[in-house]
């Protein structure tokens, strides 16, 4: 079981919580499991082809999954996934 940190803009789609636990062997599985639990997050994270939207950064612990194996990056028990969209408030 991994923990997914939800950014402020996605919190309305997950019932307002900051973290959601989700199962999966790799980053893609964990995020799809999150989308199964909270369908409103599906289109916000994934493009139509099933790949991550370019504007969504996902970190496994402190590393960008794009420099790892992307959605295929293995996820271990207790790992933390951080979903990070850009914010522009000042």
């Amino acid at each position, binding site marked *: 079981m991994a923990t997914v940190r939800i950014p402020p*803009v996605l919190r309305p789609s997950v019932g307002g919580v900051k973290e959601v636990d989700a199962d999966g062997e790799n980053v893609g599985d964990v995020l799809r499991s999150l989308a199964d639990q909270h369908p409103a997050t599906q289109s916000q994270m994934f493009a139509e082809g099933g790949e991550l939207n370019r*504007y969504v950064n996902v970190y496994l612990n402190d*590393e960008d999954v794009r420099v790892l194996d992307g959605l295929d990056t293995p996820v271990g028990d207790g790992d933390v996934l951080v979903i990070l*969209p850009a914010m*522009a408030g*000042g």
Partner: protein
Amino acid sequence: MSPSGAEFIRQIKSQIAQVDPGDVNEQLHSGNGNGSLAIIDVRESEEVERGLIPGAKHVPRGHLESRIEGAVPDRSQHVVLYCASGNRSALAAKTLEELGYENVESMTGGYTLWKDRGYKVDVPKVMTPEQRERYSRHMLVPEIGSEGQQKMLDAKVLLLGAGGLGSPTALYLAAAGIGTIGIVDDDVVDLSNLQRQVIHTTDRIGVPKVDSAAETMNALNPDVNVVKYETRIDASNIMEIIEGYDVIVDGVDNFPTRYLLNDATVRLQIPVVSASILGFDGQLSVFKPYDGPCYRCLYPVPPPAELAPSCGANGVLGVLPGTMGLLQATEVVKLIVGAGEPLIGRLLLYEALGATFTELKVRRDPECAICSRPPDEIAEDEMGVFPDYEAFCAAAG
């Protein structure tokens, strides 16, 4: 019979090695001045304040024996000593030889001849007694000291936005003695700003934010030259405004300007201390072009309007821009003074409700649309290219 003072100096000069200013100048320019050659100014402080040879260290002759090891720990290093005319430095050279320094020369004709020949001199800036007192708590910090404070007094920092993030940053950078602080903002103070924009006051509602900010900053520290830009930064004016600034503080409230700023600062190679806030969440990073990633390496494309609540009014904890703005101010000071490890290649997330900080790695993108190319290849019409901007905020409603 004891020799006269003049005769004594003549005798000393015959026992030591002397060097012509022309040779010293040549060595400085050939690069030998970097490390292998130590130039020591043995004059008194009042003389040094009026000018010295670039790169010279000041060790007054009266403190030579006690302080030379601090300035030149290696006794085999090549040392050139100078004073005003070459007499005190000759005596000092003799002393250094007696202390075991192996390669010491006294510069003939001293600083006077050096200057007469038109060689380069540095005139150190001298702080006034009022400045020494005002910045005394900085001077006491070894990482800053008078050298760091002087760097701050000489520095030019531009704040984009005198709003939530810009308010605390402007206050503390003014207090710290940043010599020139530019502020870009085209807005006027509104009652709804005052829950967080602490540089403004209730009696200044309706006043341009740049004027209100400048008034507060100069009341806090009249040393600071506040440069006001009462305008909205865009592609037509950005190069003109930002050029010449040492550091830029990004506290703007919209994506298009953040991308435009990124592209222009990569082109001009100016570091940006960037923060953004929303609700109880803040993000902070330092984008130093070509040393680390740029904003587009982190966020290659902006989120769609429905996921980018930056166009209209959004809620934010009033204290949060204070927290994030002061972290920005801290990074600015570190960059200017050259202390510590700036937040380059790292993104700091602060979540106020949980009181947690998270640090993420940010890598340079070898395919980055902007910073993967040399700065002079970034054309003006490429800067700030932002997909569908006209529709962006309209879609956000």
